[in-house]
């Protein structure tokens, strides 16, 4: 950890800095370009920025965990493997989502330069969210992300659909933000701190006011459930996913979800991670288990009835929220209360991001020329019109369903194994519920393939395809990576495991810097070196 201090603060936050700069560049350029000119090239600029930030993340990954020397930055951001790993997933999602928009937006008559600036700012918020180490940074990051996405959801200004989506998302989202703030306030009241690690310490002491903390945790959970679209906080999802421009939906389904899961997982596991709180006095784990089951059933059962591809994917996103939540149940704990994550959460998010981009990419392609209703007719017989897109769609559906050879399968396998292993089979029932839900989901995922490959309505109403290289490239790349990660998942699994395991370091990190409190330093430092990563997966 001492060696890491050689990297300067600016280098450490360079991914955030690059993305922020690209957003500002896009915003400025957009102002000075003629109104009717093609703005798609800004998409490439922002995508390039994301790629650059990704390179920076990979560079930092090798040196992590990094310590910021500026004191206020130090307490605000923790640039560890967990944050960097999730940032990488977010950047991949953001990059591909930005590429899907390049030709899609003109086809929807909504080609405005601010779009790409907003995407960059949203991604910036997401990145900060998964790295944030205290409640306020977390809140600011979440708001930066949310407000950008509210605007993006209503980006197709001439469409009442899109405007309604933005309005709905904004109103319910603001409510969730208020709950989050309330939760932060109560937690602060109970513990006297906004930093995750200090909250954990304060709660461990006997003087902590548990009822107040409990109330805070419930508020935080509500905000979390809202952001990741978990039932019963999911009502906004179908309307917003359907109404928003498809390239925005792609970003919402991937980046927002990854950021929310990453940020809240860090918060809950660091601040409230003690096994005593997880199932005892602050039983957030039990609550998450119940909500996960509700989400799986609500998502899958509703998705069965959907004829609109985007709406179906919205409900499927709710169901996937349920699966991903299982990974939070499996967080292993060492004897001294240090908590970390297995590779399941991060790996699943990666697989889900890739599959979602591929699916929404194809949804953008078939909603060509201002079609808003991506129903079955829109892509029936797609395999004949455009075999490549049909194949991409099929790969995405198979991955979401969790058929082997895809990333989705390895993700599900990892999470199921983790939950069984981590809970010592206490949560076997929830794995069985998840499997039953996977079976239900086979109906609607395979139906998409069925419609694309085996139905022929296209002859009567030919599909209007958006012909776009960047869009096909983004979706194709996502599908390709889905298969690659599914076939040779070793590296991604190792990296996810390392990222999940690094959560255990946060406690030591706090101790090592609190040089004034010299008591903890020596006691905890050796423990962290050996504690994590001894997981089986």
């Amino acid at each position: 950890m001492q060696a890491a201090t050689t990297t300067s603060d600016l280098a450490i936050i360079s991914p955030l800095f690059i993305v922020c700069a690209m957003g500002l560049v896009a915003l400025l350029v957009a102002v000075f370009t003629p109104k009717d000119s093609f703005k798609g090239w800004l998409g490439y600029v922002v995508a390039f920025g994301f790629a650059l930030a990704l390179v920076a993340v990979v560079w930092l990954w090798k040196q992590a965990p990094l310590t910021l020397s500026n004191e206020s930055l130090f307490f605000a951001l923790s640039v560890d493997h967990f944050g960097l790993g999730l940032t990488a997933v977010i950047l991949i999602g953001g990059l591909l989502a930005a590429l899907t928009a390049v030709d899609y937006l003109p086809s929807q008559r909504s080609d405005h330069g601010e779009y790409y600036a907003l995407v960059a700012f949203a991604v910036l918020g997401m990145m900060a969210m998964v790295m944030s180490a205290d409640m306020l940074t977390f809140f600011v990051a979440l708001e930066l992300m949310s407000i950008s996405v509210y605007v993006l959801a209503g980006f197709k200004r001439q469409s009442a659909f899109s405007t309604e989506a933005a309005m709905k998302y904004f109103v319910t989202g603001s409510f969730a933000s208020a709950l989050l703030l309330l939760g932060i306030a109560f937690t602060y009241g109970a513990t006297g701190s906004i930093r995750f690690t200090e909250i954990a310490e304060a709660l461990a002491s006997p003087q902590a006011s548990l009822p107040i903390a409990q109330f805070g945790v419930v508020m935080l959970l509500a905000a979390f459930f809202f952001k990741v679209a978990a039932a019963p906080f999911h009502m906004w999802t179908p309307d917003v996913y359907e109404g928003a421009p498809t390239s925005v939906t792609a970003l919402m389904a991937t980046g927002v979800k990854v950021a929310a899961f990453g940020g809240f997982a860090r918060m809950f596991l660091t601040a409230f991670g003690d096994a005593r709180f997880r199932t005892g006095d602050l039983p957030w784990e039990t609550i998450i288990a119940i909500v996960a089951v509700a989400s799986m059933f609500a998502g899958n059962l509703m998705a069965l009835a959907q004829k609109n591809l985007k709406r179906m994917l919205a409900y499927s996103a709710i169901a996937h929220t349920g699966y991903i939540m299982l990974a939070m149940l499996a967080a292993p704990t060492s004897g001294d209360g240090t908590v970390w994550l297995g590779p399941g959460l991060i790996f699943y998010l990666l697989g889900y991001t890739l599959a979602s981009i591929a699916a929404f990419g194809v949804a953008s392609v078939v909603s060509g020329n201002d079609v808003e209703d991506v129903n079955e007719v829109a892509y029936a017989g797609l395999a004949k019109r455009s075999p490549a897109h049909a194949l991409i769609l099929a790969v995405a559906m198979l991955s979401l369903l969790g058929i082997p050879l895809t990333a989705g399968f390895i993700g599900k396998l990892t999470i199921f194994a983790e939950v069984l292993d981590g809970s010592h089979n206490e949560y076997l029932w929830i794995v069985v519920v998840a499997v039953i839900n996977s079976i239900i989901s086979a109906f609607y995922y395979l139906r998409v393939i069925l419609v694309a490959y085996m139905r022929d309505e296209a002859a009567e109403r030919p599909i209007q395809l958006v012909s776009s290289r960047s869009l096909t490239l983004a979706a194709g790349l996502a599908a390709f990576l889905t298969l690659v990660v599914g076939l040779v998942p070793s590296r991604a699994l190792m990296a996810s495991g390392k990222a999940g395991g690094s959560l255990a370091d946060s406690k030591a990190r706090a101790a090592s810097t609190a040089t004034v409190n010299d008591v903890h330093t020596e006691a905890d430092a050796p423990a962290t070196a050996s504690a994590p990563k001894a997981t089986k997966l």
Partner: protein
Amino acid sequence: MDLSQATEPAASGSILLAALVFLPVLGAILLAFIPREQTAAHRGLGATIAVLVFLLSIPLLTGFDASVPGFQPGTRLDVSWIDAFGARFSLGVDGISVWIALLTTFITPLILIGAQKAVEKRVREFVIAMLVLETAMLGALFATDMLLFYLFWEMMLIPMYLLIGIWGGENRLYATVKFVIYTVVGSLLMLVGIIWLYLKTGETGAPSFAFERMLSLDLSATEQGWLFAAFGLAFLIKVPLFPFHTWLPDAHTEAPTAGSVILAGILLKMGTYGLLRFAVPLFPEAMGAFSPAILVLSVIGIVYGALVAFAQGDVKKLVAYSSVSHLGFVMLGIVAFTQQSVEGAILQMVNHGVSTGALFMLVGMVYERTHTRKITDYGGIAKSMPVFTLLFIIVTMSSIGLPGTNGFAGEFLILSGAFLDALFVPPGAGITDWPMLATVMTIIAVTGVVLGAIYMLSMVRRVFFGPITNPENAHLKDLTTRERLVMAPMIALIFIIGLFPTSFTSQTTASVEQLMTVRPRIEVVRDKSERQKIRAEGARTTLAPRVGAPERVAGVAPGPEEE
């Protein structure tokens, strides 16, 4: 640390199995780059690749050492794959899988050559689907790592889904969705079972998906019961055993000829193969506990399948229900679990693949000419298609098990093996007692052979003989040279297996003997009377292993009632 152990690069073994598994899928990728208009190229290249795979699979047999129990050391392959999981890319072939694998490589080229005419639209996708399917089937047969097996097992699903859904008959969408749902329900539950076993192996060293590691696990009776249920459901749906069979007639009827042949020829065998390879040796006590139920359902399947087949007016549906009946025999052989009956079951899997595959092909050939499958639309076509009639009758004889054909050898081994297992019935045994139940059920199963003759021969009579009622049938063209060439190897195989069955079963003997080592563990649970006897003596461990011999001495069994 666990990971370091798993990452040791212990690559070993021959490349042959991997080449067999990957050659078809590489061919499929190659085909994807050829423009879709060049259908002749797709057909030719696809058939060439399939023939190549077949030629490549011949060393499996020539290099097969029949004296080795378990996986052949010469072809074993074990390389690292997903280190993080301890899952390895390990392939192997033994006496249980070798014939089914050869059947796969044998039938696939025949289909690709034979189905040239039947598939007119989207030829490229068709050939690709067939080749991917071949990869998946061979992979599932060779895999000795449970995760790898599961991967190939699921991989079979998608091409078959497309085969039925794209090139199928009118009601294809219904049939294909039904097929997939049944299969997925079974296989996902199996996944939970696999994960459970995987975590179990973690209790004694690094967790691993290796089949050998799982075999050495010590599982409690409850665990075995649930795991057997999870695995068994996946396999029994695939077989299909009686109450899970309803997807089969739909799938068969709607599938194109190629789909039906591959389904009957190989895919159904995956269920019985999986049972023999995985479910029985992994969970012998549970197999014992479930044996009576499976036995009864198999026999119901035999009789029910035969009776329903008799009532069919659609030739394809008739053959489909006959599959239910025939697979019931295979299941009977597995559940009786003697050396003879299991060898018979393996032989019968191959037989059924050959004869039912041939039947579906012949039905497909006549369908291409008449575009009807109704028996009543035919009648007297022996006059216009003499060669076709001859071949059809030979295959029919094989299907009903006439001595001299392959069907006889398989059914005889199964039935005699089952009787060996059942007899002698101790006096005073009730119907729920295993020996009694097995005897009664095997006797009923024998009637299935008779029923098989009835429905097949009656179908042959109505289709081929009598006056020509439908004037269109008077001028049907007989088989072309290509069609004869496709059928010739299958007809030859029918007689070769029928006349020299031991040269086929001898390859399986050693592996089946090894399998028989779990028989005592099955018996302990299955044969209730003996269980009570053992309990009374309090000497469970002294039970000597017996290999299928009827040593059971009469007169020791108390009543069948539970204490």
